Protein backbone atom coordinates (compact mmCIF):
# COMPACT_ATOMS: atom_id res chain seq x y z
CA UNK A 1 0.00 0.00 0.00
CA UNK A 2 1.45 3.35 -0.98
CA UNK A 3 1.98 6.16 1.46
CA UNK A 4 -0.77 8.15 -0.30
CA UNK A 5 -3.36 5.39 -0.09
CA UNK A 6 -2.41 4.57 3.46
CA UNK A 7 -2.93 8.14 4.69
CA UNK A 8 -6.10 8.48 2.63
CA UNK A 9 -7.57 5.37 4.15
CA UNK A 10 -7.35 6.81 7.65
CA UNK A 11 -8.34 10.30 6.59
CA UNK A 12 -11.41 9.11 4.67
CA UNK A 13 -12.61 6.95 7.56
CA UNK A 14 -12.19 9.71 10.16
CA UNK A 15 -13.78 12.23 7.80
CA UNK A 16 -16.88 10.05 7.43
CA UNK A 17 -17.23 9.74 11.19
CA UNK A 18 -16.66 13.45 11.87
CA UNK A 19 -18.96 14.59 9.07
CA UNK A 20 -21.76 12.21 10.11
CA UNK A 21 -21.67 13.35 13.71
CA UNK A 22 -21.49 16.93 12.57
CA UNK A 23 -24.47 16.40 10.21
CA UNK A 24 -26.58 14.88 12.98
CA UNK A 25 -25.88 17.71 15.40
CA UNK A 26 -26.43 20.28 12.67
CA UNK A 27 -29.74 18.66 11.67
CA UNK A 28 -31.17 18.59 15.17
CA UNK A 29 -30.13 22.12 16.04
CA UNK A 30 -31.61 23.32 12.73
CA UNK A 31 -34.86 21.51 13.47
CA UNK A 32 -34.94 22.93 16.96
CA UNK A 33 -34.47 26.43 15.56
CA UNK A 34 -37.25 25.86 13.00
CA UNK A 35 -39.73 24.68 15.68
CA UNK A 36 -38.80 27.56 17.88
CA UNK A 37 -39.50 30.10 15.20
CA UNK A 38 -42.71 28.35 14.05
CA UNK A 39 -44.06 28.23 17.58
CA UNK A 40 -43.26 31.91 18.07
CA UNK A 41 -45.19 32.67 14.85
CA UNK A 42 -48.19 30.60 15.98
CA UNK A 43 -48.20 32.31 19.37
CA UNK A 44 -48.20 35.68 17.69
CA UNK A 45 -50.95 34.59 15.32
CA UNK A 46 -53.02 33.32 18.27
CA UNK A 47 -52.81 36.67 20.05
CA UNK A 48 -53.79 38.50 16.85
CA UNK A 49 -56.89 36.28 16.34
CA UNK A 50 -57.98 36.57 19.98
CA UNK A 51 -57.55 40.29 19.81
CA UNK A 52 -59.62 40.43 16.62
CA UNK A 53 -62.28 38.13 18.06
CA UNK A 54 -62.97 40.68 20.84
CA UNK A 55 -63.93 43.25 18.22
CA UNK A 56 -65.12 41.19 15.25
CA UNK A 57 -67.60 38.39 16.11
CA UNK A 58 -67.20 36.99 12.57
CA UNK A 59 -63.99 35.40 13.71
CA UNK A 60 -65.98 33.25 16.13
CA UNK A 61 -67.88 31.72 13.24
CA UNK A 62 -64.73 30.63 11.49
CA UNK A 63 -65.32 26.98 12.38
CA UNK A 64 -63.15 25.21 9.80
CA UNK A 65 -59.72 25.78 8.23
CA UNK A 66 -60.97 26.45 4.72
CA UNK A 67 -59.00 29.41 3.36
CA UNK A 68 -57.78 30.58 6.77
CA UNK A 69 -55.16 28.98 8.93
CA UNK A 70 -57.33 28.69 12.01
CA UNK A 71 -60.75 27.63 13.26
CA UNK A 72 -62.76 28.32 16.38
CA UNK A 73 -65.21 26.10 18.20
CA UNK A 74 -67.16 26.88 21.33
CA UNK A 75 -66.53 24.72 24.39
CA UNK A 76 -67.70 24.54 27.95
CA UNK A 77 -66.06 26.65 30.64
CA UNK A 78 -64.78 23.60 32.55
CA UNK A 79 -62.98 22.02 29.67
CA UNK A 80 -61.67 25.44 28.57
CA UNK A 81 -60.13 26.06 31.97
CA UNK A 82 -58.60 22.57 31.99
CA UNK A 83 -56.93 23.09 28.64
CA UNK A 84 -53.53 24.69 28.29
CA UNK A 85 -51.65 25.88 25.17
CA UNK A 86 -50.65 22.81 23.27
CA UNK A 87 -48.31 22.53 20.28
CA UNK A 88 -48.27 19.41 18.11
CA UNK A 89 -47.20 18.12 14.70
CA UNK A 90 -49.87 17.07 12.29
CA UNK A 91 -50.49 16.64 8.62
CA UNK A 92 -52.97 18.24 6.30
CA UNK A 93 -54.00 17.42 2.79
CA UNK A 94 -52.76 20.10 0.43
CA UNK A 95 -54.33 20.60 -2.97
CA UNK A 96 -51.21 21.74 -4.78
CA UNK A 97 -49.05 18.89 -3.54
CA UNK A 98 -51.96 16.42 -3.65
CA UNK A 99 -50.52 14.86 -0.54
CA UNK A 100 -50.51 15.16 3.22
CA UNK A 101 -47.97 17.77 4.25
CA UNK A 102 -46.65 18.33 7.72
CA UNK A 103 -48.02 21.23 9.70
CA UNK A 104 -47.46 22.68 13.16
CA UNK A 105 -50.65 23.10 15.13
CA UNK A 106 -51.36 25.21 18.26
CA UNK A 107 -54.47 24.55 20.32
CA UNK A 108 -55.53 27.12 22.86
CA UNK A 109 -58.67 28.49 24.55
CA UNK A 110 -60.01 31.98 25.05
CA UNK A 111 -63.21 33.68 26.19
CA UNK A 112 -65.31 36.45 24.77
CA UNK A 113 -67.94 37.81 27.14
CA UNK A 114 -67.84 34.65 29.29
CA UNK A 115 -68.29 32.37 26.27
CA UNK A 116 -65.47 29.95 25.98
CA UNK A 117 -63.91 28.91 22.69
CA UNK A 118 -61.20 26.57 21.57
CA UNK A 119 -58.82 28.03 18.91
CA UNK A 120 -56.72 25.85 16.61
CA UNK A 121 -54.01 27.65 14.63
CA UNK A 122 -51.84 25.94 12.07
CA UNK A 123 -48.76 26.81 10.16
CA UNK A 124 -47.21 24.95 7.30
CA UNK A 125 -43.92 23.41 8.30
CA UNK A 126 -40.62 22.55 6.75
CA UNK A 127 -40.65 19.04 5.27
CA UNK A 128 -38.23 17.05 7.45
CA UNK A 129 -37.36 14.47 4.84
CA UNK A 130 -36.53 17.21 2.34
CA UNK A 131 -34.31 18.85 4.90
CA UNK A 132 -32.53 15.60 5.68
CA UNK A 133 -32.12 14.89 2.00
CA UNK A 134 -30.68 18.33 1.29
CA UNK A 135 -28.40 18.08 4.26
CA UNK A 136 -27.24 14.62 3.20
CA UNK A 137 -26.34 15.75 -0.29
CA UNK A 138 -24.60 18.81 1.03
CA UNK A 139 -22.49 16.64 3.29
CA UNK A 140 -21.67 14.15 0.55
CA UNK A 141 -20.52 16.99 -1.63
CA UNK A 142 -18.47 18.41 1.19
CA UNK A 143 -16.93 15.00 1.80
CA UNK A 144 -16.00 14.43 -1.83
CA UNK A 145 -14.64 17.93 -2.14
CA UNK A 146 -12.57 17.54 1.04
CA UNK A 147 -11.16 14.22 -0.12
CA UNK A 148 -10.32 15.66 -3.50
CA UNK A 149 -8.54 18.58 -1.93
CA UNK A 150 -6.69 16.27 0.45
CA UNK A 151 -5.62 13.92 -2.37
CA UNK A 152 -4.34 16.77 -4.46
CA UNK A 153 -2.52 18.48 -1.61
CA UNK A 154 -1.21 15.18 -0.47
CA UNK A 155 0.14 14.20 -3.83
CA UNK A 156 1.81 17.53 -4.14
CA UNK A 157 3.15 17.20 -0.61
CA UNK A 158 4.40 13.69 -1.22
CA UNK A 159 6.31 14.91 -4.25
CA UNK A 160 7.79 17.91 -2.53
CA UNK A 161 8.13 16.89 1.10
CA UNK A 162 8.95 13.22 0.67
CA UNK A 163 11.26 13.59 -2.31
CA UNK A 164 14.46 13.04 -0.25
CA UNK A 165 12.85 9.93 1.18
CA UNK A 166 12.07 8.44 -2.23
CA UNK A 167 15.51 9.38 -3.49
CA UNK A 168 17.00 7.55 -0.53
CA UNK A 169 14.92 4.47 -1.30
CA UNK A 170 16.13 4.44 -4.90
CA UNK A 171 19.75 4.71 -3.84
CA UNK A 172 19.36 2.04 -1.18
CA UNK A 173 17.86 -0.29 -3.78
CA UNK A 174 20.93 0.13 -5.96
CA UNK A 175 23.32 -0.26 -3.03
CA UNK A 176 25.52 -3.38 -2.96
CA UNK A 177 27.39 -4.35 0.19
CA UNK A 178 31.11 -4.51 -0.33
CA UNK A 179 30.94 -2.71 -3.69
CA UNK A 180 29.58 0.73 -2.81
CA UNK A 181 30.94 3.01 -0.11
CA UNK A 182 27.57 4.57 0.68
CA UNK A 183 24.49 6.11 -0.90
CA UNK A 184 26.19 9.41 -1.69
CA UNK A 185 25.56 12.98 -0.70
CA UNK A 186 22.02 14.39 -0.52
CA UNK A 187 20.67 17.86 0.15
CA UNK A 188 18.15 17.26 2.92
CA UNK A 189 16.50 20.10 4.84
CA UNK A 190 13.87 18.30 6.93
CA UNK A 191 15.24 17.30 10.31
CA UNK A 192 13.66 13.82 10.36
CA UNK A 193 15.04 12.99 6.94
CA UNK A 194 18.41 14.34 7.96
CA UNK A 195 18.35 11.93 10.88
CA UNK A 196 17.27 9.09 8.60
CA UNK A 197 20.11 9.84 6.20
CA UNK A 198 22.61 9.94 9.06
CA UNK A 199 21.35 6.64 10.43
CA UNK A 200 21.49 5.03 7.00
CA UNK A 201 25.04 6.32 6.46
CA UNK A 202 26.12 4.98 9.82
CA UNK A 203 24.50 1.62 9.23
CA UNK A 204 26.10 1.30 5.82
CA UNK A 205 29.56 2.26 6.96
CA UNK A 206 29.45 -0.16 9.88
CA UNK A 207 28.09 -2.95 7.65
CA UNK A 208 30.76 -2.27 5.06
CA UNK A 209 33.43 -2.32 7.72
CA UNK A 210 32.13 -5.59 9.16
CA UNK A 211 31.93 -7.06 5.65
CA UNK A 212 35.50 -6.11 4.79
CA UNK A 213 36.77 -7.30 8.14
CA UNK A 214 35.06 -10.62 7.63
CA UNK A 215 36.53 -10.98 4.15
CA UNK A 216 40.02 -10.13 5.38
CA UNK A 217 39.56 -12.46 8.32
CA UNK A 218 38.55 -15.40 6.13
CA UNK A 219 41.48 -14.84 3.82
CA UNK A 220 43.98 -14.43 6.64
CA UNK A 221 42.61 -17.40 8.55
CA UNK A 222 42.77 -19.57 5.44
CA UNK A 223 46.35 -18.46 4.76
CA UNK A 224 47.44 -19.00 8.31
CA UNK A 225 46.04 -22.52 8.18
CA UNK A 226 48.15 -23.50 5.18
CA UNK A 227 51.43 -24.02 7.03
CA UNK A 228 50.10 -26.09 9.95
CA UNK A 229 48.12 -28.15 7.43
CA UNK A 230 51.26 -28.70 5.37
CA UNK A 231 53.14 -29.83 8.46
CA UNK A 232 50.34 -32.16 9.53
CA UNK A 233 49.94 -33.76 6.10
CA UNK A 234 53.66 -34.14 5.46
CA UNK A 235 54.48 -35.52 8.89
CA UNK A 236 51.65 -38.00 8.61
CA UNK A 237 52.80 -39.16 5.17
CA UNK A 238 56.31 -39.65 6.53
CA UNK A 239 54.94 -41.50 9.54
CA UNK A 240 52.92 -43.82 7.28
CA UNK A 241 56.16 -44.84 5.52
CA UNK A 242 57.61 -46.08 8.80
CA UNK A 243 54.59 -48.09 9.87
CA UNK A 244 54.01 -51.73 8.96
CA UNK A 245 50.98 -52.45 11.15
CA UNK A 246 47.85 -52.37 9.00
CA UNK A 247 45.54 -51.18 11.79
CA UNK A 248 47.80 -48.23 12.54
CA UNK A 249 48.10 -47.50 8.83
CA UNK A 250 44.33 -47.51 8.52
CA UNK A 251 44.03 -44.95 11.31
CA UNK A 252 46.76 -42.80 9.80
CA UNK A 253 44.91 -43.01 6.50
CA UNK A 254 41.70 -41.81 8.14
CA UNK A 255 43.42 -38.91 9.88
CA UNK A 256 45.09 -38.04 6.59
CA UNK A 257 41.72 -38.01 4.82
CA UNK A 258 40.39 -35.53 7.37
CA UNK A 259 43.43 -33.30 6.97
CA UNK A 260 42.97 -33.38 3.21
CA UNK A 261 39.33 -32.48 3.60
CA UNK A 262 40.39 -29.55 5.71
CA UNK A 263 42.85 -28.62 3.00
CA UNK A 264 40.14 -28.73 0.32
CA UNK A 265 37.82 -26.67 2.47
CA UNK A 266 40.54 -24.15 3.11
CA UNK A 267 41.43 -23.91 -0.55
CA UNK A 268 37.78 -23.43 -1.49
CA UNK A 269 37.41 -20.63 1.06
CA UNK A 270 40.52 -18.98 -0.33
CA UNK A 271 39.14 -19.26 -3.86
CA UNK A 272 35.86 -17.75 -2.76
CA UNK A 273 37.46 -14.81 -1.04
CA UNK A 274 39.80 -14.27 -3.99
CA UNK A 275 36.86 -14.23 -6.40
CA UNK A 276 34.97 -11.84 -4.17
CA UNK A 277 38.05 -9.64 -3.90
CA UNK A 278 38.24 -9.56 -7.70
CA UNK A 279 41.71 -11.03 -7.86
CA UNK A 280 41.10 -12.72 -11.19
CA UNK A 281 41.21 -9.76 -13.55
CA UNK A 282 43.23 -11.23 -16.41
CA UNK A 283 40.84 -12.25 -19.17
CA UNK A 284 41.27 -14.13 -22.41
CA UNK A 285 39.06 -15.86 -24.99
CA UNK A 286 38.21 -19.23 -23.49
CA UNK A 287 36.88 -21.93 -25.79
CA UNK A 288 34.29 -23.67 -23.66
CA UNK A 289 34.07 -26.65 -26.04
CA UNK A 290 37.81 -27.35 -25.79
CA UNK A 291 37.80 -26.81 -22.05
CA UNK A 292 34.99 -29.28 -21.49
CA UNK A 293 36.56 -31.90 -23.74
CA UNK A 294 39.63 -31.78 -21.51
CA UNK A 295 37.52 -31.99 -18.38
CA UNK A 296 35.48 -34.91 -19.68
CA UNK A 297 38.74 -36.72 -20.25
CA UNK A 298 39.92 -35.96 -16.70
CA UNK A 299 36.60 -36.94 -15.19
CA UNK A 300 36.14 -40.18 -17.15
CA UNK A 301 37.74 -42.21 -14.39
CA UNK A 302 35.53 -40.69 -11.71
CA UNK A 303 32.45 -41.14 -13.88
CA UNK A 304 33.30 -44.77 -14.63
CA UNK A 305 33.83 -45.43 -10.96
CA UNK A 306 30.44 -43.92 -10.14
CA UNK A 307 28.89 -45.81 -13.10
CA UNK A 308 27.73 -42.60 -14.70
CA UNK A 309 27.74 -42.03 -18.45
CA UNK A 310 29.16 -38.71 -19.69
CA UNK A 311 27.70 -37.21 -22.87
CA UNK A 312 28.69 -34.01 -24.56
CA UNK A 313 26.36 -32.35 -27.04
CA UNK A 314 27.89 -29.46 -28.95
CA UNK A 315 25.32 -27.42 -30.81
CA UNK A 316 27.69 -24.59 -31.52
CA UNK A 317 31.11 -23.32 -30.61
CA UNK A 318 31.11 -21.25 -27.45
CA UNK A 319 33.87 -18.74 -26.80
CA UNK A 320 33.72 -16.64 -23.67
CA UNK A 321 35.99 -13.80 -22.67
CA UNK A 322 36.94 -14.49 -19.06
CA UNK A 323 39.71 -15.57 -16.73
CA UNK A 324 40.92 -19.08 -17.60
CA UNK A 325 41.34 -20.23 -14.00
CA UNK A 326 37.81 -19.11 -13.21
CA UNK A 327 36.49 -20.87 -16.32
CA UNK A 328 38.14 -24.08 -15.17
CA UNK A 329 36.83 -23.74 -11.64
CA UNK A 330 33.36 -22.97 -12.90
CA UNK A 331 33.08 -25.89 -15.30
CA UNK A 332 34.83 -28.49 -13.16
CA UNK A 333 32.66 -27.67 -10.18
CA UNK A 334 29.48 -28.07 -12.21
CA UNK A 335 30.70 -31.22 -13.93
CA UNK A 336 31.95 -32.80 -10.72
CA UNK A 337 28.67 -31.91 -9.08
CA UNK A 338 26.69 -33.60 -11.84
CA UNK A 339 28.78 -36.77 -11.57
CA UNK A 340 28.86 -37.06 -7.80
CA UNK A 341 25.25 -36.25 -7.07
CA UNK A 342 24.06 -38.93 -9.43
CA UNK A 343 22.79 -42.47 -9.30
CA UNK A 344 24.37 -45.72 -10.47
CA UNK A 345 23.68 -46.13 -14.18
CA UNK A 346 22.89 -42.41 -14.44
CA UNK A 347 23.75 -39.92 -17.14
CA UNK A 348 25.42 -36.51 -17.30
CA UNK A 349 24.71 -34.45 -20.38
CA UNK A 350 26.75 -31.38 -21.17
CA UNK A 351 25.05 -29.21 -23.78
CA UNK A 352 26.96 -26.36 -25.35
CA UNK A 353 25.27 -23.58 -27.28
CA UNK A 354 26.56 -20.29 -28.64
CA UNK A 355 25.80 -18.39 -25.42
CA UNK A 356 24.93 -21.07 -22.92
CA UNK A 357 26.24 -24.15 -21.20
CA UNK A 358 23.99 -26.73 -19.64
CA UNK A 359 24.64 -29.62 -17.28
CA UNK A 360 21.79 -32.10 -17.04
CA UNK A 361 22.10 -35.06 -14.72
CA UNK A 362 19.99 -37.81 -13.29
CA UNK A 363 19.93 -38.00 -9.52
CA UNK A 364 17.68 -38.13 -6.52
CA UNK A 365 14.13 -37.77 -7.76
CA UNK A 366 13.26 -34.50 -6.16
CA UNK A 367 14.07 -30.87 -6.68
CA UNK A 368 16.86 -29.31 -4.63
CA UNK A 369 16.10 -26.42 -2.32
CA UNK A 370 16.62 -23.56 -4.76
CA UNK A 371 16.76 -20.90 -2.06
CA UNK A 372 19.67 -22.59 -0.31
CA UNK A 373 21.32 -24.36 -3.23
CA UNK A 374 24.04 -21.76 -3.85
CA UNK A 375 24.61 -20.90 -0.20
CA UNK A 376 27.85 -21.85 1.50
CA UNK A 377 27.92 -25.25 3.17
CA UNK A 378 24.65 -26.37 1.63
CA UNK A 379 24.62 -30.15 1.36
CA UNK A 380 21.71 -31.67 -0.47
CA UNK A 381 22.54 -35.22 0.52
CA UNK A 382 24.81 -36.51 3.24
CA UNK A 383 27.85 -36.83 1.06
CA UNK A 384 30.80 -37.40 3.32
CA UNK A 385 33.83 -35.34 2.42
CA UNK A 386 31.92 -32.84 0.37
CA UNK A 387 32.91 -29.29 1.27
CA UNK A 388 29.53 -27.78 0.39
CA UNK A 389 31.34 -24.88 -1.24
CA UNK A 390 31.35 -25.99 -4.89
CA UNK A 391 28.12 -24.29 -5.88
CA UNK A 392 28.93 -21.14 -3.86
CA UNK A 393 32.10 -20.90 -5.90
CA UNK A 394 30.04 -21.36 -9.09
CA UNK A 395 27.66 -18.65 -7.94
CA UNK A 396 30.48 -16.29 -6.98
CA UNK A 397 32.20 -16.78 -10.36
CA UNK A 398 28.92 -16.27 -12.23
CA UNK A 399 28.25 -13.08 -10.25
CA UNK A 400 31.81 -11.85 -10.81
CA UNK A 401 31.68 -12.49 -14.58
CA UNK A 402 28.06 -11.29 -14.80
CA UNK A 403 26.81 -14.65 -16.08
CA UNK A 404 23.42 -16.03 -15.25
CA UNK A 405 23.26 -19.33 -13.39
CA UNK A 406 19.96 -21.13 -13.03
CA UNK A 407 18.71 -24.42 -11.65
CA UNK A 408 15.57 -26.35 -12.41
CA UNK A 409 14.24 -29.81 -11.87
CA UNK A 410 12.66 -31.15 -15.02
CA UNK A 411 11.73 -34.65 -16.22
CA UNK A 412 13.42 -36.14 -13.13
CA UNK A 413 16.72 -34.49 -14.00
CA UNK A 414 18.67 -31.70 -12.35
CA UNK A 415 19.53 -28.98 -14.81
CA UNK A 416 22.09 -26.26 -14.24
CA UNK A 417 22.22 -23.64 -16.94
CA UNK A 418 24.88 -21.00 -17.43
CA UNK A 419 24.14 -18.07 -19.74
CA UNK A 420 27.11 -16.02 -20.83
Amino acid sequence: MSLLRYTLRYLSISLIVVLTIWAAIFYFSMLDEVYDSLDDGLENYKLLIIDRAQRDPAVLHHTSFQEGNYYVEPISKESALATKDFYRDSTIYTINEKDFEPVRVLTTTFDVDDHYYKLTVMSSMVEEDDLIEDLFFAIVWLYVLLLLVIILTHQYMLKIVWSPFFKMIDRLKAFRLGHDDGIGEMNVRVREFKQLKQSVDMLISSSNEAYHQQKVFIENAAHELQTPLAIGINKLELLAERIEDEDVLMTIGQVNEELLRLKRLNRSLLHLSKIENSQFDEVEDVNINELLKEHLDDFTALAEFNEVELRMIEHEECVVRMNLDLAKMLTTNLLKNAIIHNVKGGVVEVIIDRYSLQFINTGVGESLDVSRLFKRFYKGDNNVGNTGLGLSIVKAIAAYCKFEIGYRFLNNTHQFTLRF
Partner: protein
Amino acid sequence: MKVLIIEDEPQLRSALKESLLKEHYVVEEAATYSDASQKIWSYEYDCILLDVMLPGGNGLKLLEELKQMGKRSSVIIISAKDSLDDKLTGLGLGADDYLTKPFHISELNARIKTVLRRNTYDGDEVIHYGNVQVNVTNRQVQVQGYSLDLHPKEFDSLNYFLLNKERLVSKTSLAEHVWGDYVDQANDFEFVYSQIKNLRKKLRDAKASVEVQSVYGMGYKLTLQ
Protein backbone atom coordinates in the same frame (compact mmCIF):
# COMPACT_ATOMS: atom_id res chain seq x y z
CA MET B 1 72.61 -34.07 -5.07
CA LYS B 2 72.63 -31.23 -2.58
CA VAL B 3 69.42 -29.56 -1.53
CA LEU B 4 68.90 -26.43 0.56
CA ILE B 5 65.65 -25.96 2.44
CA ILE B 6 64.85 -22.30 3.14
CA GLU B 7 61.85 -22.36 5.45
CA ASP B 8 61.21 -20.59 8.73
CA GLU B 9 58.75 -23.08 10.17
CA PRO B 10 60.91 -25.66 12.06
CA GLN B 11 58.34 -28.47 11.96
CA LEU B 12 57.87 -28.23 8.20
CA ARG B 13 61.61 -27.95 7.72
CA SER B 14 62.24 -31.13 9.65
CA ALA B 15 59.52 -33.00 7.74
CA LEU B 16 60.97 -31.94 4.42
CA LYS B 17 64.45 -32.85 5.60
CA GLU B 18 63.37 -36.31 6.68
CA SER B 19 61.75 -36.96 3.32
CA LEU B 20 64.69 -35.65 1.30
CA LEU B 21 67.15 -37.73 3.29
CA LYS B 22 65.19 -40.81 2.24
CA GLU B 23 65.93 -39.87 -1.35
CA HIS B 24 69.63 -39.82 -0.39
CA TYR B 25 70.11 -36.13 -0.98
CA VAL B 26 72.51 -34.06 1.05
CA VAL B 27 70.25 -31.67 2.89
CA GLU B 28 70.98 -28.29 4.44
CA GLU B 29 68.63 -25.88 6.12
CA ALA B 30 68.20 -22.14 6.53
CA ALA B 31 65.55 -20.51 8.67
CA THR B 32 66.03 -16.80 8.00
CA TYR B 33 66.71 -14.57 5.05
CA SER B 34 70.26 -13.69 6.14
CA ASP B 35 71.04 -17.29 6.96
CA ALA B 36 69.84 -18.36 3.53
CA SER B 37 71.67 -15.56 1.76
CA GLN B 38 74.90 -16.50 3.49
CA LYS B 39 74.52 -20.16 2.51
CA ILE B 40 73.82 -19.55 -1.17
CA TRP B 41 76.77 -17.16 -1.43
CA SER B 42 79.11 -19.69 0.18
CA TYR B 43 78.00 -23.04 -1.23
CA GLU B 44 76.65 -24.67 -4.36
CA TYR B 45 73.28 -26.37 -4.34
CA ASP B 46 71.59 -28.46 -6.99
CA CYS B 47 68.16 -27.57 -5.75
CA ILE B 48 66.77 -24.93 -3.43
CA LEU B 49 63.35 -25.09 -1.79
CA LEU B 50 62.40 -21.50 -1.14
CA ASP B 51 59.71 -20.12 1.16
CA VAL B 52 58.58 -16.63 0.15
CA MET B 53 57.76 -15.16 3.56
CA LEU B 54 60.90 -15.29 5.64
CA PRO B 55 61.98 -13.52 8.79
CA GLY B 56 64.23 -10.70 7.63
CA GLY B 57 63.09 -10.40 4.03
CA ASN B 58 61.15 -11.60 1.02
CA GLY B 59 62.33 -14.94 -0.33
CA LEU B 60 61.89 -13.69 -3.89
CA LYS B 61 64.86 -11.34 -3.32
CA LEU B 62 67.07 -14.41 -2.88
CA LEU B 63 66.23 -15.30 -6.48
CA GLU B 64 67.68 -11.97 -7.57
CA GLU B 65 70.81 -12.65 -5.55
CA LEU B 66 71.17 -16.05 -7.21
CA LYS B 67 70.85 -14.38 -10.58
CA GLN B 68 73.54 -11.84 -9.66
CA MET B 69 75.87 -14.68 -8.69
CA GLY B 70 75.09 -16.43 -11.94
CA LYS B 71 74.43 -19.72 -10.16
CA ARG B 72 72.45 -22.45 -11.90
CA SER B 73 70.67 -23.96 -8.92
CA SER B 74 67.15 -25.23 -9.55
CA VAL B 75 64.71 -23.34 -7.35
CA ILE B 76 61.26 -24.49 -6.26
CA ILE B 77 59.22 -21.86 -4.45
CA ILE B 78 57.04 -23.20 -1.64
CA SER B 79 54.53 -20.62 -0.51
CA ALA B 80 51.44 -20.42 1.66
CA LYS B 81 50.08 -17.88 -0.76
CA ASP B 82 48.41 -19.19 -3.89
CA SER B 83 49.09 -15.87 -5.50
CA LEU B 84 49.37 -15.54 -9.24
CA ASP B 85 51.52 -12.41 -8.87
CA ASP B 86 54.04 -14.17 -6.65
CA LYS B 87 54.06 -17.12 -9.01
CA LEU B 88 54.69 -14.99 -12.09
CA THR B 89 57.32 -12.87 -10.32
CA GLY B 90 59.03 -15.97 -8.98
CA LEU B 91 59.09 -17.78 -12.30
CA GLY B 92 60.15 -14.56 -14.01
CA LEU B 93 63.08 -14.28 -11.61
CA GLY B 94 64.27 -17.72 -12.65
CA ALA B 95 62.50 -20.11 -10.26
CA ASP B 96 61.81 -23.50 -11.87
CA ASP B 97 58.55 -24.31 -10.14
CA TYR B 98 56.01 -22.99 -7.67
CA LEU B 99 54.28 -25.16 -5.10
CA THR B 100 51.51 -23.98 -2.82
CA LYS B 101 51.32 -25.17 0.78
CA PRO B 102 49.99 -27.58 1.79
CA PHE B 103 51.43 -30.10 -0.62
CA HIS B 104 52.08 -33.83 -0.61
CA ILE B 105 55.59 -35.12 0.04
CA SER B 106 55.37 -37.20 -3.12
CA GLU B 107 54.36 -34.17 -5.17
CA LEU B 108 57.42 -32.30 -3.91
CA ASN B 109 59.59 -35.32 -4.70
CA ALA B 110 58.24 -35.44 -8.21
CA ARG B 111 58.79 -31.73 -8.75
CA ILE B 112 62.36 -31.86 -7.40
CA LYS B 113 63.26 -34.79 -9.62
CA THR B 114 61.66 -33.21 -12.64
CA VAL B 115 63.54 -29.92 -12.30
CA LEU B 116 66.80 -31.70 -11.52
CA ARG B 117 66.40 -33.91 -14.59
CA ARG B 118 65.44 -31.02 -16.79
CA ASN B 119 68.53 -29.11 -15.73
CA THR B 120 70.81 -32.15 -15.94
CA TYR B 121 69.78 -34.01 -19.08
CA ASP B 122 68.31 -31.63 -21.69
CA GLY B 123 66.74 -34.02 -24.14
CA ASP B 124 65.44 -37.53 -24.42
CA GLU B 125 65.40 -39.10 -21.10
CA VAL B 126 64.80 -42.71 -20.22
CA ILE B 127 64.21 -43.97 -16.70
CA HIS B 128 65.15 -47.56 -15.91
CA TYR B 129 63.60 -49.39 -13.02
CA GLY B 130 63.71 -53.15 -12.87
CA ASN B 131 63.02 -54.39 -16.39
CA VAL B 132 60.86 -51.33 -17.14
CA GLN B 133 62.07 -48.47 -19.32
CA VAL B 134 60.12 -45.25 -19.46
CA ASN B 135 60.86 -42.55 -22.02
CA VAL B 136 59.49 -39.39 -20.44
CA THR B 137 59.80 -37.27 -23.56
CA ASN B 138 57.88 -39.38 -26.06
CA ARG B 139 55.86 -41.15 -23.35
CA GLN B 140 56.81 -44.70 -24.36
CA VAL B 141 57.04 -47.59 -21.92
CA GLN B 142 58.98 -50.76 -22.63
CA VAL B 143 59.14 -53.96 -20.60
CA GLN B 144 62.00 -56.28 -21.55
CA GLY B 145 62.22 -54.52 -24.88
CA TYR B 146 58.52 -54.93 -25.71
CA SER B 147 56.48 -51.75 -25.75
CA LEU B 148 53.62 -51.51 -23.33
CA ASP B 149 50.43 -49.76 -24.45
CA LEU B 150 49.25 -47.46 -21.67
CA HIS B 151 46.36 -45.06 -21.45
CA PRO B 152 47.64 -41.45 -20.95
CA LYS B 153 46.44 -41.38 -17.34
CA GLU B 154 48.06 -44.76 -16.70
CA PHE B 155 51.32 -43.44 -18.09
CA ASP B 156 51.10 -40.37 -15.86
CA SER B 157 50.44 -42.61 -12.87
CA LEU B 158 53.40 -44.84 -13.65
CA ASN B 159 55.63 -41.81 -14.15
CA TYR B 160 54.53 -40.37 -10.83
CA PHE B 161 55.26 -43.69 -9.13
CA LEU B 162 58.70 -43.74 -10.72
CA LEU B 163 59.42 -40.25 -9.45
CA ASN B 164 58.53 -41.59 -6.01
CA LYS B 165 59.81 -45.12 -6.32
CA GLU B 166 59.86 -47.13 -3.12
CA ARG B 167 58.09 -44.25 -1.40
CA LEU B 168 54.52 -44.05 -0.22
CA VAL B 169 52.25 -42.29 -2.67
CA SER B 170 48.89 -41.39 -1.18
CA LYS B 171 45.89 -41.85 -3.45
CA THR B 172 44.95 -38.19 -3.04
CA SER B 173 48.38 -37.07 -4.09
CA LEU B 174 48.19 -39.37 -7.10
CA ALA B 175 44.73 -38.13 -8.06
CA GLU B 176 45.77 -34.51 -7.76
CA HIS B 177 48.90 -35.06 -9.79
CA VAL B 178 47.37 -37.14 -12.57
CA TRP B 179 43.80 -35.84 -12.78
CA GLY B 180 44.62 -32.22 -12.16
CA ASP B 181 44.29 -29.57 -9.52
CA TYR B 182 40.55 -29.36 -9.78
CA VAL B 183 39.95 -33.00 -9.06
CA ASP B 184 40.94 -32.22 -5.49
CA GLN B 185 37.42 -30.91 -5.09
CA ALA B 186 36.10 -34.39 -5.65
CA ASN B 187 34.99 -35.91 -2.40
CA ASP B 188 36.06 -39.38 -3.16
CA PHE B 189 39.28 -40.74 -4.58
CA GLU B 190 38.13 -44.32 -4.64
CA PHE B 191 37.98 -44.12 -8.41
CA VAL B 192 41.78 -44.13 -8.36
CA TYR B 193 41.67 -47.77 -7.27
CA SER B 194 40.05 -48.95 -10.49
CA GLN B 195 42.56 -47.00 -12.55
CA ILE B 196 45.49 -48.51 -10.70
CA LYS B 197 43.99 -51.97 -11.03
CA ASN B 198 44.25 -51.63 -14.82
CA LEU B 199 47.85 -50.41 -14.65
CA ARG B 200 48.78 -53.28 -12.35
CA LYS B 201 47.20 -55.82 -14.67
CA LYS B 202 49.06 -54.45 -17.70
CA LEU B 203 52.39 -54.54 -15.82
CA ARG B 204 51.73 -58.07 -14.61
CA ASP B 205 50.67 -59.29 -18.06
CA ALA B 206 53.88 -57.83 -19.53
CA LYS B 207 55.84 -59.69 -16.83
CA ALA B 208 57.34 -56.48 -15.45
CA SER B 209 59.61 -56.90 -12.46
CA VAL B 210 58.06 -53.89 -10.75
CA GLU B 211 54.85 -53.91 -8.81
CA VAL B 212 52.37 -51.31 -7.57
CA GLN B 213 51.79 -52.33 -3.97
CA SER B 214 48.78 -51.21 -2.02
CA VAL B 215 49.55 -49.50 1.26
CA TYR B 216 46.56 -50.23 3.41
CA GLY B 217 44.34 -47.19 3.93
CA MET B 218 46.83 -44.73 2.42
CA GLY B 219 47.74 -45.40 -1.18
CA TYR B 220 50.49 -47.16 -3.12
CA LYS B 221 54.16 -47.89 -3.34
CA LEU B 222 56.13 -48.88 -6.45
CA THR B 223 58.62 -51.62 -5.62
CA LEU B 224 60.78 -54.25 -7.28
CA GLN B 225 59.40 -57.75 -7.00
